[in-house]
C-alpha cells in the first residue's frame, strides 16, 4: 500500500515537470526563509546615501526608497508571507474540521444551526468581512493571521461535513457506535482519520489562498505594516515607486505567483498520494 502510493507520486513527478519544479521551489523558499537570519544584511537598515539604486554587486536586487537592501527585505518578506499562510491555514483548518465533523456527525438541530451560521458568514464578501474585523484589531502580523484564519474555514467545514455524512454510515463506525464508544472518540479516531485526505488537500490550497489574501490586504494598506515587510506590502511600496524603480515590482510579484502556483500544484501531488485510486494526476 505504502509503496504504491510513493510509486504514484514518483510517476506523477516524472510525468509532470511543473509538479517537480513546484516541490523544489517550495523547498527552496522554505529553507531560505528559515535560514534568513544568516544573511549579514539588516532588512530594516536605512541608508539615505543609497536610495532607489538599481541592482548592483553590493545590493543584488537594488535598494528601496529608504536605501534598504531589497533582496534582504524580500527574503524577510517571504518569511512573513509564509508564516501568515501556514498559521492562518492551521487556524482555519482546525475550525473547519471541528465544525464540519460535529455538524455532520451530530446531524439534526446542531447541523442545521451550524450550517446556517456558515451560510451567513459566507454571504458576506470575504474582503469586506476581513477588513471590517481587522479594524477592530491592531493592524500587524497577529491581527492578519487571526483574521484570515477566522474567516476562511467555511469551505473546509462544508467539505468535511459532506464526507462525514457518508463516513458515519460505514460499518466500522456503526460498530463503534454499537459497542458504546464515546462520540468524541469516534470522531477523533474514525471520522477525522477517514476525512484526512480531504483535509490535507484543502489545507494546501488554504495556504495559497491565505498568502493571496495577505498580499491583497497588505497591498491595500490594511495588512502587514512597515517597517516589517511582506510580499504584499513590498508591492504596495513598489506601486509608489513604479516609474522610477520598476524592478521593485518584479521580484516580490514573481515570488508570490510562483509560491501560490506551487502550493496549488503540491495539492495535486498530495491528492495522488492520499487517494491512490486516482492515479496519473487525475484532476
Amino acid at each position, binding site marked *: 500500500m505504502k509503496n504504491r502510493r510513493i510509486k504514484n507520486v514518483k510517476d506523477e513527478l516524472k510525468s509532470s515537470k*511543473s509538479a517537480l519544479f513546484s516541490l523544489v521551489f517550495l523547498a527552496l523558499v522554505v529553507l531560505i526563509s528559515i535560514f534568513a537570519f544568516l544573511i549579514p544584511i539588516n532588512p530594516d537598515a536605512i541608508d539615505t546615501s543609497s536610495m532607489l539604486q538599481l541592482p548592483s554587486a553590493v545590493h543584488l536586487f537594488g535598494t528601496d526608497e529608504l536605501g534598504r537592501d531589497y533582496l534582504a527585505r524580500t527574503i524577510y518578506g517571504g518569511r512573513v508571507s509564509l508564516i501568515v499562510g501556514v498559521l492562518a491555514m492551521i487556524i482555519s483548518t482546525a475550525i473547519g474540521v471541528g465544525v464540519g465533523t460535529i455538524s455532520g456527525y451530530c446531524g439534526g438541530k446542531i447541523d442545521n444551526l451550524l450550517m*446556517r451560521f456558515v*451560510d*451567513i458568514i459566507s*454571504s*458576506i*464578501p470575504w*474582503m*469586506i*468581512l476581513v*477588513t*471590517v474585523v481587522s*479594524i*477592530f484589531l491592531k493592524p500587524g502580523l497577529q491581527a492578519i493571521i487571526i483574521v484570515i484564519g477566522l474567516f476562511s474555514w467555511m469551505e473546509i467545514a462544508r467539505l468535511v461535513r459532506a464526507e462525514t455524512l457518508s463516513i458515519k454510515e460505514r460499518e466500522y463506525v456503526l460498530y463503534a457506535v454499537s459497542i458504546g464508544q464515546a462520540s468524541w472518540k469516534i470522531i477523533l479516531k474514525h471520522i477525522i482519520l477517514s476525512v484526512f485526505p480531504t483535509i490535507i488537500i484543502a489545507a494546501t490550497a488554504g495556504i*495559497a489562498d491565505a498568502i*493571496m489574501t495577505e*498580499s*491583497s490586504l497588505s*497591498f*491595500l*494598506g*490594511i495588512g502587514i505594516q512597515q517597517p516589517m515587510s511582506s510580499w*504584499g506590502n513590498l*508591492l504596495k511600496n*513598489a*506601486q509608489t515607486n*513604479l*516609474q522610477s524603480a*520598476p524592478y521593485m*515590482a518584479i521580484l516580490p*510579484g514573481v515570488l*508570490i*505567483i*510562483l*509560491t*501560490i*502556483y506551487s502550493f*496549488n*500544484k503540491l495539492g495535486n501531488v498530495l491528492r495522488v498520494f492520499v487517494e491512490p485510486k486516482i492515479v496519473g494526476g487525475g*484532476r
Partner: protein
Amino acid sequence: MAKYIFKRIFQAIPLLLIISIICFSLIKLAPYNAVDAMTTPNMPEQTVNLIKVKYGFDKPAYVQYFLWLKGILSGQFGYSIVTHESITNDLGARIPATIMLVLPAYILAIVIAIILGLIAGANKDKKIDKIIDGFCSIGIAIPSFWFAMIMIFLFGYKLSLLPILGMHTIGMEKSFFDFLKHYIMPCFVLTMAFLPGLIRYIRSSTISQISEGYVTVQNAFGGSKKEILFKHVYKNVLLPVITKIGMALPMLVTGAMITETVFGWPGVGPYFVKAVQGLDYPVIMAILIVSSSLVIIGNLLSDILYCLIDPRIKEMR
C-alpha cells in the same frame, strides 16, 4: 413551483435580518462613534445631549436598531463620520461607476471562458487542454494588483499609450474617446482576473458532461465531435453557468475593489478602502450590508432562475 419560490424568499428574509443585526452590533462595538465625531471634548454636556437626542442616540439600543433599519429600508444609510456626507448619495454616485467596469468585464470573461472551457474540456489531456489549463493555473496565482501594476508600467509609463489613473482627463468629461482610453486597462485587468476561475469551472463541467450517456449515444450514431459539442454538450454546460451569473450579482458592487484602487477608478473600491483606513464605520457597514444583501438576493435569483429553466428541478419540488 410558486410554492418553492415563496419558500426560498421566506428563507432569505431571516438571513438578511441577522446580517443587519451583526452590522448594527459592529457599529455599536466600534470604539469611536458618530456622536464622538460630531462633538468636541470642550462642548458643554447639554449640547452633547442635544446632539444625542437629535440623532436618536439617547434611546435604548434596540430602538436605535429599528430606527437604523427603518432608515436603510427607505434608502437612508446615514452619514459618514469623516466627511459628514450622506452615504446614500456617495454610494449612488459610485455604484454606477463600478457596474460600468465590472459588468462588461464579467460578460467578456464569461464569453471567452465558455469558448476556451468547451475547447479544453472536449480535448482533455491533449496539447490545447494543457495550454489552457496551464494558463488557468498561472492565472489563478497572479494577484490582480500585480498584473495591474505591470500593465500600468508597460502601457502607461514605457509606451505612454494609456492614462494610468481615474476615469476622465480633467476638462474632457464629455469625450467618449478619452473615457475609452481610461477604460481599457482596468477592464482588461478585471477580465483577466475573472477568467481563470470561470474557464476551470466550464472545463470541468464539460468533462463531466462528455462522459454522460447521451454523448455516447450520439457518438454511436456517428455524430461529429463538433456537432455533439456545439449542439448538445454546450446547452448542458451553460445551465450551471446561470447559477454562477446569479451568484455574481454582489460583484457589481464589490467585485473590483483592488483593480479600482490601483487604477483610481471612482467606484466603490477606493471609497471603501478610504473608509477602512479612516475608520469610517457607517460607510463600512453600509457597504457591508449592501454587499451581503446582494449575495443573498443573488443566490435567491439563481435558484429561481435555475428552477425556471431546468425542468428536472421543477418536477422534484
